[in-house]
């Protein structure tokens, strides 16, 4: 690896004009991207316990791209995902999500931003008390579409191959099926941005593969942007782009071919740790 400064020269879109360091103006001049991050630093804790976990992050995610983020445990991937997802407040740098600068937004405005983002977690986090359809309908209810929510939920579940499981509660579903319900819930409002944190970690090889293929298919059909954290190198092939995070910095930013050629597939995971 060349010892380039993180952020510099990393953006695939070399056409992007130099970014002014002041916030606000950045989004105005650049072409629209789903996520634009500039000079982002993030700290946990306060005072003596203050600990920096993200250093000087610069990243653009264009619309329609499937991006996989990988890197050793504790490197800050989840933290970055929660920041992009408007789940934490950012204080340093600029973070624009779906053409809206979210640094400096209040709690309530952050909630509005979140409604346009689909979240998929490692755990499915479905309500045991609700059927698959009802779990998905909970998401549709955010849009106040009371008439067609059932239809839309069933349709979404059908697309994910769960047409015969619509009225099953999570207890009667397999791990892969539950995760697919969670994906249906995340996708049903057609969010332009999908954030997934190790969505296949709790699944066996085949269901993990199926789930990711479905995400890819739906994203490609609808032109969604996906940012997915994963350690699972069996699913890297769905990515348009792979970024690597190490110790709170973006280390590499490559397309799939580059990534494969620069990593020995047999020792992929270990190589990532020594980078």
């Amino acid at each position: 690896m060349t010892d380039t400064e993180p952020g510099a020269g990393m953006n695939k879109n070399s056409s992007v004009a130099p970014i002014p360091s002041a916030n606000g103006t950045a989004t105005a001049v650049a072409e629209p991207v789903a996520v634009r991050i500039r000079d982002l630093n993030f700290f946990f804790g306060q005072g003596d316990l203050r600990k920096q976990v993200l250093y000087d992050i610069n990243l653009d995610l264009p619309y329609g791209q499937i991006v996989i983020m990988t890197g050793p445990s504790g490197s800050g991937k989840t933290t970055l995902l929660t920041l992009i997802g408007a789940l934490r407040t950012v204080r340093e740098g600029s973070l624009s999500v779906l053409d809206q600068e979210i640094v400096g937004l209040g709690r309530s405005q952050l909630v509005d931003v979140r409604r346009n983002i689909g979240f998929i977690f490692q755990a499915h986090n479905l309500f045991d008390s609700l059927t698959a359809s009802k779990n998905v309908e909970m998401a549709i209810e955010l849009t106040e579409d009371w008439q067609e929510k059932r239809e839309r939920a069933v349709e979404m579940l059908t697309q994910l191959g769960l047409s015969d499981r619509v009225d099953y509660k999570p207890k009667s579903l397999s791990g892969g099926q539950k995760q697919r319900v969670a994906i249906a819930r995340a996708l049903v409002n057609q969010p332009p941005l999908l954030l997934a944190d190790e969505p296949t970690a709790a699944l066996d090889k085949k269901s993990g593969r199926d789930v990711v293929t479905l995400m890819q298919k739906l994203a490609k059909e609808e032109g969604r942007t996906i940012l997915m954290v994963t350690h699972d190198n069996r699913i890297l092939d769905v990515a348009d782009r792979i970024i690597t995070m190490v110790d709170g910095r973006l280390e590499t930013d490559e397309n799939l071919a580059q990534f494969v050629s620069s990593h020995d597939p047999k020792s992929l995971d270990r190589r990532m740790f020594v980078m």
Partner: protein
Amino acid sequence: MRTPLAFLNLVHEKTRLGVAIAGVAFAVILVFMNLGFLGALSETAAAFYAQFNADLFLISPQALEITTATPFPIERIYQVAGVEGVEDVMPLYVNYIQWRNPETRENRAIFAFGINPDDPTFLLPELQSAQARNSLRRPNTVFFDRLSRPEYGPQETGTRTEADRRDVTIGGQYSLGGGFAADGTIIMSDQNFRRYFNPFPLDQISVGLIKLEEEVDADEARLAVMELLPEDVEVYTKEGIIARDRNYWINATSTGFIFGMGVAVALVVGVVIVYQILYTDISSHMKQYATLKAMGYRSGFLFYTVLQESVILAVLGFIPGFILSMILYQLTLTATSGTLPVVMTLTRFIFVFILTIFMCGISGLISVNKVIQADPAEVF
């Protein structure tokens, strides 16, 4: 329609729901029983006076309630006798006397009324016949209250025993009940009263009863009588003296406090149980609630969901609580052969229902803190 998340979450955990309903029902029953007893006791106070054939009552200001009535001059009722609209005035003498149970030979205080047998002092049907009046006139003869406690012994006409070491014979029975103050009552003539409480001057009376003519307004007549009489007696209408006695028994004694405590303890128990249930429920759904927040639900929605859960628990617990209370009321009525008139009233039903909602609402508000803390950033 919005997915009834609160309801479905509660119903999903059958055991937890069962415990919650049992807890709320338990609290509801305790509240109903305490209020029932309190209501019954205050009913008793009223029932007691209902049997007096009078519209106005004269009583000494020192009296706490009827059994502690201190005597005042009989002239007071004679003064009133001439007032326009007054139909009749009657003296009433009261005191406790030791009644010996002829079977166990144990003495026990019983509450005695002394009346002029010629006066229609009581409305009790058993005292209205000429024969009954004649019995009353006989020396050392009393009428015995059927609603007296069984500890006083046999009640049959002709039973002979002792009252304050004087011979006494039961000449008949009536049904009055001693209310708060007495476990049993007897009625005797004023002449007998004077003998038993010797020396008891009959020109000092305990209560003055005034019967008004049909169309006379009691409140107005009361004012007129008060105008006339000196400070050594107070004048009450029937409602007034009932309220005065009731106030004494409920507020001045610890009766009201004790039953009030019963209600408070029941509510605290209810709050704790419902809180436990809600807290457990929220704790086991933290990830889901956090996910809802990540999806774009606001804290207000979760707040509302938890409060909804608490109201649902209130309603689901109130229903069996109410039904069981009705059964217990009936059992109490039967067991006390009607002397403790615990009956359900609409007011009490509504009051306890609101109290139950309030109780569960408090639990909801305490536990809602937890759900507000659900942090969507922590579920990734």
